């Protein structure tokens, strides 16, 4: 089901209204030091609204909608730096199951994931946030049945997940996607304290975890294409989040530039400040466009998902973080306080910028692609 433009606008408006009212700055702040770091109340509501179900096909109780809709929600969630498990469950987890070849796992998980009753996540990044298969920290061996060893880092929401899909590499370097339950013998989860406190990332360690055939999302070693897809989705998702965050900071900063007076004038009348705001707008609008390009790519099976992701990451990742840096600068001393929201946005966009492959790697990949064709 593809929404019409009007329906999509309605989705945006209702999401915005809900988040503004229910997941405002105070609410976000009250959860910064919370060990779980998840707004359970808001999650129940938005799951009821179908946010977790957007990319899930209708046959599994989902909306069967497209990335165009998903990105609207991710953008709004970024605007409020909201602590909701959308990246982990609604994007990564769903993409992995939908893109995988296990009908049984889809049937077993997706209906609950659609309703938000169960949360999924995917361990898809290597030590440095890399998405290159050889860098994956989880290793699949097949001596006497499949076994999982090693550690995955930067796994979003692993501490609250009911299922963790693990991108594991085998001896030949090929990728397999397997689903483990956090309670399985040999799985330990360790939340990592991060500078961005609006989200939780975890180490997941695997100590010789037995993997049954029913846990395979793909045939062993046949997960490379799925890995490309899932990590591209993650990359586009964090960029959509960053655009939302940067847009909010643009709004806050240009308002402040009008309200704040120094030297008997609004600071926005000083060209230095005016240009900072203009540069933020350019960053936001161009980033929005880069993400829109990437979103189209994810919805169009004929396009390389890698290119889509790399366009978003190469441009929107750093540009949105830069816009948030300018936001702090435009606010002067106030912008440097904990009490002001600017730091929450800066930290969030810095994290967005760093996940699912570095900016440099995405740029080099694009460069190689246009050279080689």
């Amino acid at each position, binding site marked *: 089901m593809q929404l019409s433009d009007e329906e999509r606008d309605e989705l945006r408006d209702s999401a915005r209204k809900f988040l503004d009212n229910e997941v405002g700055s105070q609410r976000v702040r009250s959860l910064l030091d919370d060990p779980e770091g998840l707004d359970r109340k808001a999650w129940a509501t938005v799951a009821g609204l179908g946010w977790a179900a957007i990319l899930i096909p209708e046959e599994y109780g989902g909306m069967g909608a497209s990335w165009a809709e998903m990105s609207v929600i991710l953008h709004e969630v970024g605007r409020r730096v909201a602590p909701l498990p959308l990246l982990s469950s609604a994007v990564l987890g769903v993409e992995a199951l939908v893109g995988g070849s296990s009908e049984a796992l889809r049937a077993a998980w997706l209906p609950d994931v659609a309703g938000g009753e169960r949360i999924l996540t995917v361990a898809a*990044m*290597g*030590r*440095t*946030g*890399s*998405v*290159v298969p*050889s*860098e994956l920290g989880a290793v699949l061996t097949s001596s006497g049945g499949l076994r999982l060893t090693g550690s995955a*880092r*930067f796994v979003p929401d692993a501490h609250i997940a009911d299922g963790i899909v693990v991108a594991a590499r085998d001896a030949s370097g090929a990728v397999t996607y397997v689903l483990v339950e956090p309670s399985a013998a040999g799985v330990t989860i360790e939340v*990592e*304290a*991060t*500078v*961005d406190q609006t989200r939780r*990332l975890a180490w997941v360690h695997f100590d010789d975890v037995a993997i049954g055939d029913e846990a395979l999302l793909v045939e062993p070693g046949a997960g490379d294409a799925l890995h490309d897809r899932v990590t591209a989705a993650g990359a586009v998702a964090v960029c959509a989040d960053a655009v939302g965050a940067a847009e909010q900071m643009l709004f806050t900063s240009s308002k402040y530039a009008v309200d704040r*007076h*120094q*030297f*008997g*004038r609004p*600071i926005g009348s*000083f060209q*230095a*400040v005016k240009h900072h705001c203009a540069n933020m707008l350019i960053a936001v609008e161009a980033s929005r466009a880069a993400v829109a390009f990437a979103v189209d790519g994810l919805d169009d099976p004929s396009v390389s998902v890698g290119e889509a992701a790399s366009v978003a990451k190469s441009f929107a990742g750093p540009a949105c973080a830069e816009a948030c*840096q300018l936001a*702090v*600068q435009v606010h*002067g*001393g106030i*912008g*440097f*306080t*904990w*009490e*002001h929201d*600017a*730091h929450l946005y*800066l*930290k969030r966009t*810095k*994290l967005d*910028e*760093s*996940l699912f*492959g*570095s*900016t*440099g*790697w995405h740029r*080099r990949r694009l460069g190689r692609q246009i050279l080689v064709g």
Partner: protein
Amino acid sequence: MIEELEALEPFRDEVRRWCAEHVPPNWRTEQAGADHHQFAAFHRWWGTRLREAGYFAPHWPAEWGGGFSLLQQVVLGQEFARADAPRNGLYQVALYNAGPSIIHAGTDEQKARFLPGILDGTVWCQGFSEPNAGSDLAGLQTRAVRDGDHYIVTGQKVWTSLAMEAEYCILLVRTDPTAPKRKGISYLLMDMKSPGVETRPIRQATGQAEFCEMFLDEVAIPVENRLGAENDGWNVTQATLSSERGAVLVELAERLLRNGTLALAEATKGWTNDEGQVASQDPAVQEILGARYAESMALRQLLNTMVTNVIRRGGVGPEASVVKLFYSELLQRIMKDAAGIAGPSAQNAQPALMSAGWESGAWLYDYINAFGWTIGGGTSEIMRNIIGERVLGLPRDPEPKGA
């Protein structure tokens, strides 16, 4: 390097030996996570060590416990940076603002009253900025009304670094509300224990509470604590602000080179890039390191030029306005690049290290902390205005109507 420095090799050896003996080797690990009280206690301890060696106020005149030549100060800064000595952070305002202002504008009686205390480790803070007077400092509104031999002061200050630890405050107040704004300001030395002074720590973006709001409610400050003439405080301030941006930067630039650029280069040897290559061997990383190294060396050379100009010509050139801006933005760039190369690992929240200033080794934290430089002490935008107007002689911004 400046030739005259060669003659200072024996002095350098002496300082180097002293550092080898006195810099606590594990201070970074021990100070990680310290709050501002622990930070202050550690810095008081370190200040005592510096005083014992005679290195506490090297830039002050000899009669006030200093008397080190500018080049000796350069050597000291270089050696402290080289030894990764803790910064002398707690005493910045006392040593670089309050002290020099008192030496410059104080009466003999004021010098005798306040300078020995500073040399003994009195902590001072700087109560200049107000909620409505940041970049437009001269627009400050804290009122001081003369009542016999006291000023009665009421108003609010903000962003006052370490006010909660300070025993004294250099305070700017408005004594003539009818005069043009720069001509109605007086400069007072306020005892922080005076009744009516209340400080409230403000938490910063890094999570630390290093600065405060300061509420002044009919605080009585003796007239004899006024520095300079009544309503002439702005001129006293200008002397303070220029010393704020002077010699300290030599040491900071040296620290930035070592604990910023070179420490980052070292760190990349332990990191890998997206393809698993050791980051230090990645040409893209090398290019970034090279760029920041070149800038770090240029900054160092700018400061050499500044020092040379002071020694040879008795004054500074345009480089003096450039250094603060260049330093601030280079600091921000280095830390941003470091966080970029480290990837999401830079998000790992480590206990903050206040004592290190801006090179704690937690790159993302240091990046955020760098706003202290691009905003504090005159924002980068204001610094550019100053360069445009005072160095290049470009026309000034139009005055607002009715100013």
